[in-house]
């Protein structure tokens, strides 16, 4: 199994260069589709990197920085910062090396708009490594599913689906064993002809395996050890939490229509969309520690529990990550999801409002919660306003498998399993045929 990893290279944009940088980034996009990368663009030919699932360029601007003044705190300064994010198969360093090899001039051109980068003397790879920011929590829809696997399985599905249409009339719908036999021979033949490939998974890197195992058991162990402390502070935590939930100012600020327009113009071209959001952590150590602890737990459960196609009730998120920046005063969140923005948010409110409340209610502008999990997102309009208000347009967005949703990917994997694992009863066989 090849585990996934991430990169997020950030650098402050030079004063006065924001407009020029935006223009350059726009040149990476498809002409008629705002914000969507042309996979073959000259600067960074995303499509050539076969380990890259998703990538984006965002200019992180603190457009909502003033909101913290409602807490009697002055906004911290923030300079517009370029962020280049990607979700990849395998480890970060080897991918960045590939990037530096095959897209050096494009990357250098882009980063030259950032401070402390000069095109002549910089070692691009070292510079990127130095400017990489680690996330505090990362969600991967299916750990181990590679871009290569996704493409191979999609091709398998397409090919089987077309062939099944051809043979079903001559063989008969009810003749399921013979249908299977024909389909399987067809796959063998197509493989032989080189039109289909089903590459077996790579061995899991030993280092990753050990680290993952240590994390899986180490974290609960440590939590167990410190649990007496949690018990002692629990009542104080509860009292303080309720005090804050009652006294924190609630911001009911409608998002401007212009802002919404700059966001929606990039949405609903494909079956998936991107989401980037940025905001302040509520002031005070209590909020910060609570936030960090919850994000820490999220990272744990994403790694070890929700790594097989669903995050609690949500099956539409491909990748998501939480990143604390500006010395823990601010948080950046990025996700890639299926469906339109409105349905993404409705899914959230109705299915995992509690989880959303846990994760974001320590951010400035979030609607008031009760006991960290109640209300909050269910306050529909304050919630919808705040999440749009804090959202940032994504300058360039790349998805390696447009037209496919996370549900599609899971289905294609099941079809492939059906091809490779041949021990079935009739019910399983019918189920398999129904997927094609």
């Amino acid at each position: 199994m090849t585990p996934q990893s991430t990169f997020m290279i950030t650098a402050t944009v030079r004063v006065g260069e924001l407009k020029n940088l935006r223009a350059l980034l726009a040149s990476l996009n498809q002409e008629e589709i705002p914000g969507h990368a042309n996979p073959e663009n000259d600067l960074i030919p995303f499509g050539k990197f076969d380990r890259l699932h998703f990538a984006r360029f965002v200019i992180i601007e603190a457009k909502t920085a003033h909101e913290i003044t409602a807490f009697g705190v002055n906004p911290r300064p923030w300079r517009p910062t370029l962020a280049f994010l990607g979700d990849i198969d395998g480890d970060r360093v080897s991918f960045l090396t590939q990037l530096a090899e095959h897209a050096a001039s494009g990357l250098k051109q882009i980063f030259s708009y950032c401070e402390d980068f000069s095109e002549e003397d910089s070692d691009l790879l070292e510079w990127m490594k130095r400017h990489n920011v680690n996330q505090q929590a990362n969600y991967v829809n299916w750990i181990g599913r590679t871009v290569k696997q996704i493409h191979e399985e999609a091709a398998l599905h397409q090919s089987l689906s077309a062939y099944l249409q051809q043979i079903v009339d001559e063989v008969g719908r009810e003749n399921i064993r013979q249908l299977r036999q024909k389909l399987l021979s067809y796959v063998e033949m197509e493989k032989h002809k080189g039109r289909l490939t089903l590459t077996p998974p790579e061995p899991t890197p030993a280092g990753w395996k050990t680290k993952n195992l240590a994390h899986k058991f180490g974290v609960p162990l440590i939590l167990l050890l410190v649990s007496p402390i949690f018990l002692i502070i629990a009542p104080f935590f509860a009292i303080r939490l309720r005090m804050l939930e009652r006294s924190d100012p609630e911001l009911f600020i409608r998002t401007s229509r212009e802002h919404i327009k700059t966001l929606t113009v990039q949405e609903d071209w494909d079956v998936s969309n991107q989401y980037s959001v940025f905001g302040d952590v509520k002031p005070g150590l209590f909020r910060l520690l609570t936030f960090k602890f919850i994000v820490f737990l999220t990272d744990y459960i994403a790694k070890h529990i929700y790594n097989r196609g669903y995050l609690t009730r949500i099956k539409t998120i491909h990748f998501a990550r939480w990143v604390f920046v500006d010395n823990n005063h601010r948080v950046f969140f990025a996700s890639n999801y299926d469906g339109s923005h409105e349905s993404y948010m409705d899914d959230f409110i109705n299915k995992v409002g509690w989880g959303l409340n846990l994760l974001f209610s320590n951010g400035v502008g979030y609607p008031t919660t009760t006991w960290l999990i109640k209300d909050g997102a269910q306050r529909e309009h304050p919630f919808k306003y705040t999440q749009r208000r804090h959202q940032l347009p994504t300058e360039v967005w790349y998805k390696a498998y447009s037209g496919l949703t996370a549900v599609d990917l899971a289905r294609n994997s099941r079809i492939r399993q059906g091809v490779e694992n041949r021990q079935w009863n009739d019910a399983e066989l019918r189920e398999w045929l129904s997927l094609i």
Partner: protein
Amino acid sequence: MNKTSNFEFDDLQGLLRFGHGKLTDTCFMLLNIADVNAAKQWLSAAPITNASTTDALPDNALQIAFSVEGLRMLKLKESVIEGFSDEFIVGMTGDESRSRRLGDVGDNTPSKWEWGGSETAVPHVLLLLYARQGELDHWRTTVEGEHFATAFHLLSQLPTQSINEIEPFGFVDGISQPTIDWMQKQSTDIHERDRYSNLLAPGEMVLGYPNEYGYYTPRPLIDPQEDRLAAELPDAEDEPRLKDLGRNGTYLVIRQLSQDVPGFWQFLDKEAASDADRREQIAAAMVGRKRNGTPLIEQHIPGVAAEDHGNNFTFDLDPKGNHCPIGAHIRRANPRTGDFPPGVTGLFSRLLKILGFAQAPEEDLIASSRFHRLLRRGRSYGPVLSPKDAVKPDAPAGDRGIQFICLVANISRQFEFVQNAWMVNSKFGGVQNERGPLVGHRKPLIDGQSTDHFNRPDAAGTMRTVCHLPQFVTVRGGGYFFMPGLRALKYIAATPANGRDSAS
């Protein structure tokens, strides 16, 4: 006032409570305001039908709604207009991103519409007249009165035709409608609404009341201290010091959908190799009902009267769509899902579901229906053409379709969501690249994958696929309107035409 016993039906336009089904003759007028003062005068005296019941069935009805431009023409202050939702203010066609979301692309592109196709082309006023058979002309003369022609410029009169609740393709229409919980007896709490219920909080359809989240949808609230005219408006329940311009009003969404009836039946006839029974079967699978309205699912559910056969079911027992395909029209329009997927019986199973465990891969893909319901009030138009005649190669051409109308309190969460996430979504409920078989456009996905087919899951395993579906329905016009309560209408009519604040 005790809100649980006395709903203010006399302040509500009748259309929110009744479909005026007995009033078979209708005339939908698209108007622009020609003379503001004359228009206001007409409005203040217009015999708008309210929602209170009378002993005898009425002989006629009149309903009215305004576009944002109409409200601006009538000098409603911009600060008040800002209280409406973004969708209403921007309009159905005011933003290409919205058109893309709604599937108004290709042949549905607003620039090709007959009316309402651009921001400036949206009519100011939509006037809906209903009368008993043969009495429409008389009612229209009564309604218009003397100065109507001075006040308004008639842009167009949308055709409608009464064919007994049968839409042009030949199916009984308007069966699935939410029942409004006027008494507000049903809890909106997520812990008490696991299963599908047809009963809906009034705030989903009527502004100024709690919606299914238990909150009030934002709408224009006015401080009576600053605007004396507003004193006559109802109080805002959630902001007692303010007056509520939205209360007892609603948003009205209208879309003229042209239906290619010969195209539909001739395509199915070819698909069925001219076998009439098979033709009907495929058609029923695409709709999710037989032509007489019988659903393809039989299952009793609570909250729906037992004799309401057309609505007495959910899709819970048919998760794979073997009886009613997942992509069928009625399953997309109202998936009849509860807050939880089926199988929640106790605390433990509930916790499992909340955490997403113990789920089949195709389970829980569709949002809870109660947040996405529409109160439909459309009428069809065009000469009747039976399927039997429609399949003939010399089937008479003709302009047929439906004036689709729905009433909602939240255009984006209700109408736009249903249209986008359910109707035209090529991945709805996990379907494989197919859009709504009746109303969807057929544009391929961004990567070129086709969407012009319809799958019928089958208990045998292999799906039955109908390929190369043409587009059967084309959008010809549409717009977002606000249908005010009667006191709000008085306020709108009374706002001074010079636009000055009445308090000064």
